[in-house]
């Protein structure tokens, strides 16, 4: 059930009405309803993997309680290891086994030994990377005594499976979401309106921007040999926009849906393409994953306070793991390495925290220097996305080489003028709304209601005009 379909709209409307009208103020009833809805939502994708989700949930739920009840460090560590081991084991088998075994076979072949491994070729359960990380953060926090174990199986299951975030995040933390699940929710019309607005904006980014970009991007990336350097540059630019529209659009719909049900999820994007350097970009892009790696990998490894060599090592570990988290392919590893390389100079020069505020905080427009920094960061990020999107590393290098050595011309017929206008519209609105959590959040209430509604109708009209076949969200594959 994709967020950008009428199936989801109908499903959500039903859940919303039952949740607030039938379940009323009974928190337990609300949670049971949300859990049932979440399992239905997940089962709608592929009911076969529902068992895996429930098993993973029960494993972490049980581990949490056991870790809290026992005092002996060895036993606590044993439960933690079991939980992490089994969770990562599932991830390894479903997501990484084929990749590592075939890479190993290639390596042996290069060394002159023939090895024909048996590949599993299993379908990747939707959202496995996300709900595994939910569970891991919970058991690690319980183990480190940062939070208390959750004794309600319903509440804990809902924390892992809450449908707005189940298949593509944001990756929630127990200390943030569980207290919301365990407390009474009262309907708040202002928040509900805000939720609807965020859903609308998310749909615009997905349906009007990302999906329209996807059509062009897919054409060029399908056979880059047939495209000129200029066309490939356009494809890389459009993919850079597509992945933002797709993933941040998804996150907006998730956050908006949750807000309509009285929950505040972690902000996942904060206008990343207005970043002035790569460190700022990573504070604004897929924030819930970045902070997860920061808290559970980077800092435990010593972060940047353990000497330069260790800091370099830790940076590479985090970015490579982040790449690998996205998928079992060398392209993701190279993408991670590229970002690590971009990040390192800032870290070593101690400039990785020089742009903590929003660009142009008190100005209408950015300065020339800021604009140049933004454009440079955008280009560097786009180069990384080339690896992310390419089917293999060779293709990515081919594309980058062709862009730099055989630029050629862009046939006017291939210029997606209306799409470029829409992209300009996206960034104009995002710029104007950059001080909110999403672009429309701070839409002034002073604007007359008819003008606001006209704007919403315009966005809906654009969605109708540009709606194509509902493309799957890119991050569902992770």
């Amino acid at each position, binding site marked *: 059930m994709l967020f950008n379909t*009428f199936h989801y709209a109908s499903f959500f409307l039903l859940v919303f009405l039952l949740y*607030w009208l039938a379940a009323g103020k009974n928190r337990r009833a609300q949670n049971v309803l949300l859990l049932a809805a979440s399992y239905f939502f997940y089962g709608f994708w592929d009911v076969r993997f529902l068992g895996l989700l429930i098993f993973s949930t029960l494993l972490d739920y049980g581990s949490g309680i056991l870790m809290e009840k026992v005092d002996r460090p060895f036993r606590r560590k044993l439960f933690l290891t079991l939980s992490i081991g089994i969770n990562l084991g599932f991830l390894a088998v479903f997501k990484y086994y084929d990749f590592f075994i075939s890479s190993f076979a290639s390596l042996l072949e290069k060394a002159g030994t023939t090895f024909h491994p048996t590949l599993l070729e299993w379908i990747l359960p939707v959202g496995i990377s996300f709900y595994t990380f939910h569970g891991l953060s919970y058991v690690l926090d319980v183990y480190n005594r940062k939070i208390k174990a959750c004794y309600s199986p319903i509440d804990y299951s809902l924390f892992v499976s809450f449908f707005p975030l189940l298949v593509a995040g944001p990756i929630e933390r127990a200390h943030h979401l569980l207290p919301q699940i365990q407390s009474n929710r009262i*309907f708040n*019309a202002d928040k*509900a*309106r805000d939720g*609807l607005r965020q859903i609308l904006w998310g749909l615009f980014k997905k349906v009007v921007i990302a999906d329209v970009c996807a059509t062009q991007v897919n054409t060029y990336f399908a056979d880059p040999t047939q495209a000129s350097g200029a066309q490939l540059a356009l494809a890389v630019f459009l993919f850079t926009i597509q992945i933002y529209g797709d993933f941040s659009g998804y996150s907006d719909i998730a956050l908006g849906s949750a807000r309509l049900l009285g929950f505040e999820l972690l902000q996942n994007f904060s206008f990343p393409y207005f970043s002035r350097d790569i460190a700022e970009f990573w504070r604004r892009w897929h924030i819930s994953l970045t902070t997860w790696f920061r808290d559970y990998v980077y800092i435990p490894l010593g972060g940047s306070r353990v000497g330069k060599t260790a800091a370099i090592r830790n940076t590479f570990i985090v970015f490579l793991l982040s790449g690998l988290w996205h998928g079992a392919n060398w392209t993701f590893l190279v993408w991670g390495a590229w970002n690590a390389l971009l990040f390192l100079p800032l870290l070593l020069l101690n400039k990785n925290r020089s742009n903590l505020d929003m660009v142009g905080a008190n100005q209408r427009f950015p300065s020339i220097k800021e604009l140049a920094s933004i454009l440079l960061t955008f280009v560097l990020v786009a180069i990384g996305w080339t690896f992310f999107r390419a089917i293999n590393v060779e293709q990515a290098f081919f594309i980058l080489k062709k862009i730099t050595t055989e630029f050629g011309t862009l046939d006017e017929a291939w210029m997606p003028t209306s799409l470029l206008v829409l992209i300009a519209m996206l960034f104009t609105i995002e710029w104007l709304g950059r001080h909110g959590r999403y672009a429309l959040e701070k839409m002034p209430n002073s604007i007359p209601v008819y003008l606001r*509604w006209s704007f*919403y*109708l315009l966005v*809906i009209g654009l969605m*109708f*005009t540009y*709606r*194509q*076949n509902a493309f799957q969200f890119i991050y569902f594959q992770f």
Partner: protein
Amino acid sequence: MKAFILRAVLFFSLVFILASAVDWLFCKTILRSKFSAYGVWGDLIDKRVPNIDMAIMGSSRAWTMFNPKTLEDSLGGVVYNYGVDGYAFHMQHLFFRQLMRLNYQPKYILNELDIQTLHIRKDLCNPEHFLGVLPQPHVRDYTSWYKGFDLYERYLPLIRWSGRSMALNIIQKILSRTEAEQDGYDRYHGYLSNSDEWHADADQEFQVEPLVQHWHKPTVALFQDYIRECAEKKIKLIWVLPPMYKELHRITQNQEVIFGHYRRLAKENHILLLDYTNDTLSNSKQYFYNAGHLNTRGAELFSKHLASDLKAAGIRLR
């Protein structure tokens, strides 16, 4: 909560009303087009061709092979070809239903029959052709038998137009009057022959293993009801088995069973059945563009032949 719901209902009602208005405009506009099947639907719904004496019904073999002009010249009266591309009798029956609904009763209905008439496909072929008429209950009902429009497209305004670039381009051209959108595509009373010559790909149709054509029981029952309804309404039926290239005969194992069924029904119901499946045209590729379809040259000859046989059988339209 109540205030929020009321406000949301108000907003979405506004969206619904605006979408319905645009939908209505799109429907009206596309039915003005003469392009492809839109023209046929427009002629039917807006009654642009009044007093039809003979309606031709069938599949693509009907609309590309039966020239109404030739029949009109020979038999007098007005003939309209409602052949529908890609469909068997079930969807052909939709046109009959529409004619009856609009009180548009012809004296004769000429049915083009073939081996697939009582079969049914699973997918909705050319869904764009139904965009302008889908709000009509009959069309909604008939198209729901096929995988094409989902529930939302069938019942919510405007949704079904989304992403239908061909139809939207036609609407844009008509509304902006920038181009004569019907150039080269207008049919004469639904008929449009294909001037292509036989091409090599068509030979591949014979490379398949012989198959058995299964009947779709609800369509068989619908066919029986149709015969009965026509008899009650005093509409005379004429059945035609048009020419098919000779090699095609061996592809369907139960062809004779199917044709035998038509013959038996025709005899039981006193329906004139004209069989051209072994006509001399069937022996030469020069009259076909593929095994099942005559090209313009073949269609003209066949239509003349048919007109002459109908005249000889005493059929007069006026």
